[in-house]
């Protein structure tokens, strides 16, 4: 069968409990995303599974976004958590490339927030928006998407993306000036 550049697949599975159908449709995409960000096959396979575990645990809290968009961002967030954990090991930091360092910086945004829990406004900001904002930052800063393209992939408005990223940048600058 010759692959078509513009697939028109069957209706997307949406039941988060139907892992087999969701994985059959989106699993390879999720695994590719995890491989690209983690660059370690074992970690990528584990992160791929973790992404689907979180989907199952989210249950009926799935929103109306296209499942591929949702899973892509969930995979990104999962990988950022892995990177954050990985970076606590000095040998992993020593082996980082520039691209790794950028991802790690985004991934560690949460740790910075946690270190300054007395800074209540920022703490609340991070708690509310951090996960989504970090994955948007990866799309923009790591994957090279324009704000319009980030909006298309994430399902947010362009102004929403711009505001979130600006807020994240400002927060990071402020936090780093305190450290």
């Amino acid at each position, binding site marked *: 069968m010759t692959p078509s550049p513009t697939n028109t697949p069957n209706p997307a599975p949406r039941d988060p409990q139907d892992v087999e159908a969701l994985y059959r449709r989106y699993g390879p995409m999720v695994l590719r995303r995890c491989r690209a960000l983690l660059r370690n096959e074992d970690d990528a*396979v584990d992160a791929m599974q973790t992404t689907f575990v979180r989907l199952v645990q989210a249950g009926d809290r799935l929103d109306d976004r296209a499942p591929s968009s949702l899973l892509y961002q969930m995979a990104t967030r999962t990988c950022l958590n892995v990177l954050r954990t990985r970076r606590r090991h000095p040998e992993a930091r020593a082996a980082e490339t520039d691209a790794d360092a950028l991802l790690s910086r985004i991934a560690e945004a949460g740790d910075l927030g946690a270190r300054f829990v007395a800074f209540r406004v920022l703490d609340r900001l991070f708690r509310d928006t951090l996960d989504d904002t970090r994955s948007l930052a990866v799309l923009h800063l790591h994957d090279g998407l324009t704000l319009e393209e980030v909006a*298309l992939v994430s399902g947010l408005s362009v102004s929403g993306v711009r505001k979130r990223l600006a807020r994240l940048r400002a927060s990071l600058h402020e936090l780093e000036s305190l450290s």
Partner: protein
Amino acid sequence: MNRNLPEPLLERLHQGDLPPEAAEALEARLTAEDRARLAALSADDAATLLTHPPARVAAAVHARAGRSPSTRAWALPVGAMGVAAAAAALVFALLRPTTPAPGVLPGDPDGPETASADVRAKGDDRLLVFRRTPSAAEPLPPGAVAAAGDELRLGVLLDAPARAVIVSFDGRGAVTRHVPVGEVGDPRGAPAVLPRGRTLLDFAYALDDAPAFERFVLVTGPDVTPGPVEAAARAIAVAPDAETRPLTLPAGWRQVDFLIRKPRLEPKPARP
């Protein structure tokens, strides 16, 4: 000159779930290289589904979803990483875990079900046992004879998703936990939630030289935990009727067993 489409956009186009006008706009931007990358995504889809079969991944995900995050490392493993990690993590006293050879055992969960390997339980839960052969694998019927060194692989067939524990005990009275992954008595062994349908465990086991039998028991129920199952197995493992006596379990827990017999040892010839 058009830049190549960033990977996230290419993926969305590949998934085919963008709004039509957005998809058209992206297609208009595709370079020759992008088209080749899109074709490669389709090929990679097929390769991934072959390497990590959907039913197997789904089983592992459901098993992990039923656990607390702190016990994630004890999830059912999948693929080469999982098998290696689990084999390294587990110490079985008398059953030696081995890595199933892909394509040799009937480990492909998408493969046809094999009724002759099944045992009917109350309800329709079934325990499946396969033995590796030089060219493929054979489903074993209950009571089949298997010798030390034979490699066995377990599976279950469930009517509905269920919390499950699988243990076995042998003719020496040794109890082994198979699901959830972990050593007998390990407090981290939160019950696994196995999905409806057939789930094959990602382990093969080489039978050791314990005499008489190896008896596998699958226990399911809404509040099943490994501790009482292991205790019940230990309580009867050395009894004279250990091959047949049901485990004494809390009300509402269902059990099904699968007995493997060991070859009878030939008596040594008397000295003249």
